[in-house]
């Protein structure tokens, strides 16, 4: 099928992109790495989009420290996350998640901002973001706002981003001494979206668990977190089954995904040295 678009423009600055979005009359679509958007256009899922290409905006690239937070620009690519020293030191969860995303060719183009904005419930980064207690930075005609990751993902491919806004960065608290990050997932082939996955952060003896592929959005698994904090792995696995609400499809049933999540949690608990 041939993609049918309404127009294409290259934005030079964030302000320019916001202005273009405003002019597009609701048809504006940010084009970042194009690794999800172009596939969607070729599937004919939307027509007449006015593409606003942000790939040339230098301000959206790069990773930097800002006080006790790490700021990752929206255009930071999957392949950058794998090797960026700041990410490796202060948000290793992303460095561990990135190799699990797709394949080299896609990782060379796809961006963290695109992944977060797209909000695929099976994607790794959104779950990492909530496990890390990250904040999403949005810029729009009315200025800049910051929104906690757990409030950003509102449903299946839905976020709190308003139509005229651009996701400019994600910020995460710098990892503390002794903090542990683990991500595990089950995929039928390397690079596929996960059947189920968990991203876990252990900070000060407390656990935060972000689940992906296990609901209509990334889920913060509070029941399992509380049990794990008590060192109760069995309890955490039982609670996790309640925390998640997985879909059934041609790849796997909800029961399988729920079961897989439990196995992953046990393995993560073992990774973290939580007594069984």
């Amino acid at each position, binding site marked *: 099928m041939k993609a049918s678009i309404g127009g294409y423009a290259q934005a030079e600055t964030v302000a320019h992109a916001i202005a273009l979005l405003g002019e597009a009359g609701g048809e504006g679509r940010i084009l970042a790495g194009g690794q999800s958007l172009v596939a969607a256009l070729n599937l004919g899922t939307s027509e007449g989009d006015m593409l606003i290409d942000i790939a040339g905006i230098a301000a959206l690239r790069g990773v930097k420290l800002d006080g006790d937070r790490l700021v990752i620009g929206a255009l930071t690519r999957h392949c950058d996350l794998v090797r960026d020293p700041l990410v490796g030191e202060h948000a290793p969860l992303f460095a561990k998640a990135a190799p699990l995303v797709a394949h080299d060719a896609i990782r060379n183009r796809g961006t963290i901002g695109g992944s977060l904005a797209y909000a695929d419930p099976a994607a790794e980064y959104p779950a990492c973001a909530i496990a890390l207690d990250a904040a999403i930075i949005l810029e729009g005609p009315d200025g800049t706002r910051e929104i906690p990751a757990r409030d950003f993902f509102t449903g299946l491919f839905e976020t709190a981003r308003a139509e005229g806004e651009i996701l400019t960065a994600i910020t995460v608290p710098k990892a503390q001494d002794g903090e542990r990050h683990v991500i595990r997932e089950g995929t039928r*082939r390397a690079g596929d979206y996960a*059947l189920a996955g968990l991203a876990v952060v252990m900070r000060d003896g407390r656990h935060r668990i972000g689940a992906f592929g296990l609901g209509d959005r990334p889920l913060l698994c509070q029941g399992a977190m509380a049990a794990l904090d008590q060192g109760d792995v069995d309890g955490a696995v039982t609670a996790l089954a309640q925390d998640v609400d997985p879909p059934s*499809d041609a790849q796997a049933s909800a029961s399988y995904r729920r079961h897989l999540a439990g196995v992953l949690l046990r393995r993560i608990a073992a990774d973290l040295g939580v007594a069984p």
Partner: protein
Amino acid sequence: MTIRFDDPNRPNSYIGRTVPRPNAGRLVAGRGRYVDDITLPRMVHVAFVRSPHAHARIGAIETGGAEALKGVLRVFTGRDLAEVCTPWEGKLLHLEGMKTPPQHPLALDRACWVGEPVVAVVGRTRADAEAGAALVEIDFGPLPAVTDIRTALDADTPVLHEALGDNLCFRKANEKGEVDRIFAEAHKVVEASFKTARHTGVTLEPRVILVDWNSGDGEMTAHVSNQAPHMLQVLLAGHLDIPESRVRVVCGDVGGSFGLKVHVYPDEVATAAIAKIMERPVKFTSDRMEAFISDIHARDHEATGRVALDETGKILGFDVDDWTGIGPYSIYPRTSAVEGLQVTNLIGGPYAFDHYRCRTSVVFQNKGICAQYRAVGHPVAVAITEGLVDKAAAEMGFDPIEIRRRNLVADDAYPLTTAAGLKLEGLSHHKSLDALVEAMDYAALRAEQKALREKGIHRGIGIASFIELTNPSPFMYGIGGARISAQDGCTVRMDPDGSVVALTGITEQGQGTEAIMAQIVAEAVGVSPQMVRIVTGDTRVTPFGGGTWASRGAGIGGEAALQAGRAVRGQALEVAASLLQAKAGDLDIRDGIIVDADTGEERLALSEVGRIVYFRGDTLPKGLPRELMQTRHFITSNYPYAFTNGVQASYVEVDTETGFVTLLKHWCVEDCGRIINPLLVDEQIRGGIVQGIGAALFEETCYDEEGQLLNGTMADYLVPMSGEMPDMIIRHVETPTEESELGAKGAGEAGTAGAPAAVMNAINDAIRPLGGAVTHMPFTPERILRALGTITD
């Protein structure tokens, strides 16, 4: 003079060597010419409106909106095309009782599967045509869909084609001996049920056709991504009422086919019909989404089977009931009964036993059409056979290798006719099994498996012996009345500079046809392969032939090339003998030079023979033949098929908590007769194994109960990818066929035939101690956990 294949130091010994593929450079340089690369003057594009329903009555069709769109040239309905194109029925005369209704290029009154083309929209560009297609309104009246195989013949299941009376397309039972008595009296009877998933071919290049109708000449030219140009020529001519001689089919580079491109597709015939009506070139390029709903599917089989054994583990007989759903029409012209038919022939194929019963029931459904795809029927029959043999071994306490040793047909028992009625010329099951055991270091692997099991690591070893049908004679299609050629031909021509051009009826789809033809012709004539250019895939130019399918290219087309090449060699020697005042029998051609056969002394360059023949024929004796161009055709005659054999092994690890399978290693020992190019044969085996692994672990075309396709993109239809593939060790045994001088059988399908069974047996070997078994492909993590009882709801 015969070729001393056993002497690797013989002159011009290209047959049997790894020689680089002559077309690889061109393809790697991006200079291939696929059909979609061709643009003709006045060319337009067609897009199809396809049925979104599995089964629906077609009411009013409103085309006005599309016709009014700028860029849309014309819109065609089924009725429009029915005026210039006759319908077809995929039947073969020798398949008794077979039924299938007439099929048109565009559906007329009813749409019978999701994806069936209903309306064609022609535009200046593909985008224009698609935009027009989106505006066509069809009043569909949904009808109940038939989707389940086992209940297709039940009284309360709707009949898909009323005129046929029921949903049975074809049924055949193959029976020999006293099956009921043997099974009643046998020491041991083991039973199991099996499912092979419906899947599809997923060629890298989708189907493409570009048809031009030259009204001045009254001639049609079709550029098409296809395996059998002469077959298509004959069929297009017949259905579009054009003399065969006025249809030219050209198959240039083809990006994979696997059997998928050997069939007649309604959208392709529609494209040809439209070109004829509009008198201009029309192109149809399938996209990936269309491919999933319009390419043929295969292997939607469900079977129950039993094997009977005596107390020594000797197999007494097999009894199998196979069912397969083939969609709403039998494929044209090969029919959709052949996969089931092969199952009735191939069950128990490697083993010696006397009592046999296998029945196949081929039923209609409202899903995509199933048809021949790499290793037709073999993966189904091998999975059933080898699944039963391994289950019997486990229950009787035999090692899987040992039970096979006790039952494989002895290597010196040939020729023989099997209980299923197959005539076998010469196979090497025991030699192959011995080579496999050695290649895998079986005993060490078993020891490792045992040691790891104590640590809670569940590994399994799976073995699968198989036979594979290659080099078909007219017994496959010809006797059924289909104009599908089982013979093939090759014309070899020497040009003035001593270089050689060979034109062959077999075709290249990426497997290396051109490479092996160049090697064979080079050795036959006595020149280096670089001096040989190969021409394939043009019905105006090449000898009439069948094309490349059913693993026939090397065995049939290769022999024709060998004989044509030897004939040209003979001609060149005759001229040389006259020039040198020598006897032709005392001369030989080596690397392009005429030499003394005994001493190897160089006498004359071939280019000198070329110069004299083409420019100074006046200096040759009057009456001396001087045609440096010869054609030979070849057909097998002693055996209906040249069977090959082999054995595969898979080593896997099953994560019994998640159900994930890791493929650790795969082995295949295969006997395809004379090996022409070892590297290409290994590539064929490897690629075939990968497709077999796809069937075992990944590929499944899923429909819901209403016949809606649930997975139609590369994101949710999982093809096997390199990351999951194991290392593969390939070994060979060579038992050449005596039907031909070349002695080659086919090698293209063996990998696919055996791999699913080997992987299945390996998984079951791993999980058997935990009390589970899987027989329903693909073996997804979830199916494995359900077999283990881990998940029950």
